[in-house]
């Protein structure tokens, strides 16, 4: 079985997401300046760019961890306008459609790996403990960590914690997964385990948006490469085309810096 089949019992309904004219500032400091992004169902979008470009903030706007000042989010039949009042039903629908993986894992340190994955299923989806535990074990096995089920996160390596975090997000049957620099806190070697899981997920047809500095992953796995700089998207399209022949000077400068290191 594939990762998303395990997560969903059957294949997930493929969902895309449309973000229109998202803007966000803190006081006078603009962090996202009128950014639109259309993510097709079942595709992988890699979001790259220099630090401070607003990549992570933009990603966090997608599931409203950051509240954009204006713009529209269209997902799974819901239209959400963050500048206005968001009703609880739309927010719940958004959060249940979109799963997220963080740079610093953010596992719950007082729960075992199994409980980290099982507990949210019981609370959010109302699954029974048995059902949730079974699903959690399947996912742990799939990310190669069944033997860690009863360990607390503090006893797992960074790469293991990140794979547990991915399993935790998948357990809630998301149709879209957001990754916020999932390997930046890991040794390069350990990061590979995490990238392997993400690659597999992409092959399953999960819709993914990945903020990353892993250029090889962006080139080989993503369908769309989006380059952000200075709070805007400056270039987007086929990853190989952009990497070999960037149109913007700012993209060229950034790519040279990351690729020729």
């Amino acid at each position: 079985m594939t990762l998303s089949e395990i997560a969903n019992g059957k294949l997930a309904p493929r969902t895309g997401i449309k973000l229109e004219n998202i803007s966000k500032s803190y006081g006078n400091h603009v962090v996202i300046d009128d950014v639109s992004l259309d993510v097709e169902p079942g595709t992988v979008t890699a979001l790259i760019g220099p630090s401070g470009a607003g990549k992570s903030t933009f990603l966090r706007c997608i599931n409203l961890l950051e509240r954009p000042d204006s713009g529209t989010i269209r997902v799974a039949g819901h239209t959400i306008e963050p500048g206005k009042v968001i009703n609880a039903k739309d927010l719940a629908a958004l959060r249940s459609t979109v799963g997220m993986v963080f740079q610093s894992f953010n596992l719950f340190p007082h729960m075992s790996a199994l409980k980290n994955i099982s507990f949210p299923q019981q609370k959010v989806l109302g699954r029974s403990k048995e059902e949730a535990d079974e699903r959690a074990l399947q996912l742990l096995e799939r990310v190669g960590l069944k033997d860690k089920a009863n360990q607390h996160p503090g006893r797992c390596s960074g790469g293991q914690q990140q794979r547990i975090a991915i399993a935790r997000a998948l357990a809630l049957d998301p149709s879209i997964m957001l990754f916020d620099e999932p390997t930046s806190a890991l040794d390069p070697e350990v990061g590979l385990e995490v990238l392997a899981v993400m690659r597999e997920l992409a092959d399953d047809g999960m819709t993914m948006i990945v903020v990353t500095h892993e250029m090889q992953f962006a080139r080989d796995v993503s369908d769309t490469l989006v380059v952000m700089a200075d709070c805007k998207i400056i270039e987007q399209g086929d990853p190989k085309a952009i990497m070999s022949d960037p149109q913007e000077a700012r993209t060229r400068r950034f790519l040279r810096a990351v690729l020729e290191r």
Partner: protein
Amino acid sequence: MDAFSAVLQGLPMTLLLTVSAFVIGIVGAVPLAVGLSSPNAVLRLVCRLFVDLVRGVPIIVWLFLLKFGIQIGTFKFNPVGAAIVGLGVVSIAYLAEIYRGGLESVPRGQNEAADALGLARSTTFYRVLVPQAFRIVSPSIATYLTGLLKDSSIASTIIVAEMVFQSQSFARQHPTVEGILPYVLVGILYIVLSLPVAYLSRSLDARMRKAVYA
């Protein structure tokens, strides 16, 4: 009657005051701690004022105010009631501040992960934040409890017959060298009583550490 028996007569009252005030504090501090870190500025201000007011005035003054300053209809506090309410309210204020510090020291990512998973606010609070905060603050709570045990002696000033009160009456009846004895004994008793609290706190802390990192 010898000095030791005199002091021991006050032991049940000391324990009653300490335990009652502590229970009031432990429970009552929860909503106050939530108010102290509320996004609602007015609520936050009201809670902050309450905490600063209660902590800013010496306990002995609160006990006198409750005992002699309050008369509603025919209702007046008896000494024990005034002592329990006074020490309880003071405990609420101190423990709320301890809780708040604990809640704020839980990393922000925990809240974000819970939000991203779609957990309800109350689930996040009680199942994610509180267990982690409790681990952080349990030594401070134990320290507060040993302090409260000793502060309960202030109730002697409003004629509550706890250990220090009994020591004083014995001393008054024995105006010789023997009169100093109950104070020595009561001092030792306070130390002995606070030992199990310190021990319990340490073993609880060690056990929780093991539960999290094992």
